[in-house]
């Protein structure tokens, strides 16, 4: 059963890793991905909006898919919402398995599907005062769809 959280606060990768590993000696590999806010084109901040209730459900469903496809001993997904300046972490995906390939592949799968299947929206705020909603990327759809033929 995955740990799923949507929160404004920062997360602690070391603490989350320690939680997944605590008391276990059957983990061969843990993989993590942290997505961060980049300062592209004079970006001052991102504001992340989400759909409370559905977001948690959607992430839990994606995590359940990962757990069905790979033999995981643990899976944690934490996604932040609210206003995040460049350099701030946005999302954490953490997977543990007895086999390294399962940990690495499920981690990549989770972030690809999160990007295309979890109800979050990013608004960009620039130094010159402009604001705009980030548009969905075709490359993200392509990355997500490579997991469908399996």
């Amino acid at each position, binding site marked *: 059963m995955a740990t799923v959280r949507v929160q404004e606060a920062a997360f602690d990768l070391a603490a989350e890793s320690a939680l997944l590993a605590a008391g276990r000696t059957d983990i061969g590999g843990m993989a993590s991905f942290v997505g961060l806010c980049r300062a592209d084109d004079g970006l001052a901040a991102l504001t992340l909006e989400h759909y409370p209730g559905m977001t948690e459900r959607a992430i839990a469903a994606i995590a359940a898919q990962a757990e069905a496809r790979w033999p995981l001993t643990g899976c944690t997904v934490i996604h932040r919402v609210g206003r995040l300046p460049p350099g701030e972490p946005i999302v954490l995906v953490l997977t543990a398995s007895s086999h390294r390939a399962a940990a690495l592949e499920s981690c990549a799968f989770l972030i690809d599907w999160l990007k295309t299947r*979890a*109800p*979050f929206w990013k608004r960009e705020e620039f130094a010159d005062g402009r604001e705009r*909603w980030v548009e969905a990327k075709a490359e993200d759809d392509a990355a997500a769809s490579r997991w469908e033929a399996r």
Partner: protein
Amino acid sequence: MKILYFAWVRQKVGRAEEAVAPPPEVTTVAALVDWLAAQSPGHADAFANRRTIRCAVNQDFATPDHPVAAGDEIAFFPPVTGG
């Protein structure tokens, strides 16, 4: 039924949620969009390009032919951009 709007759909409609009671012939997401688009200039603007709108019925993604009924929670929003 309860309608929720997110991101620029919310900004164009001018509200985050509303309770609506469409006529009985509104039985699908597509019919609901047609009916909502006629409710105000903001609604019309939000639903002007339907290819850019996504929908969830009771917190699951739904296609235009998905049924809708009184009591449903129905959300409209742009393609998602999290992660």
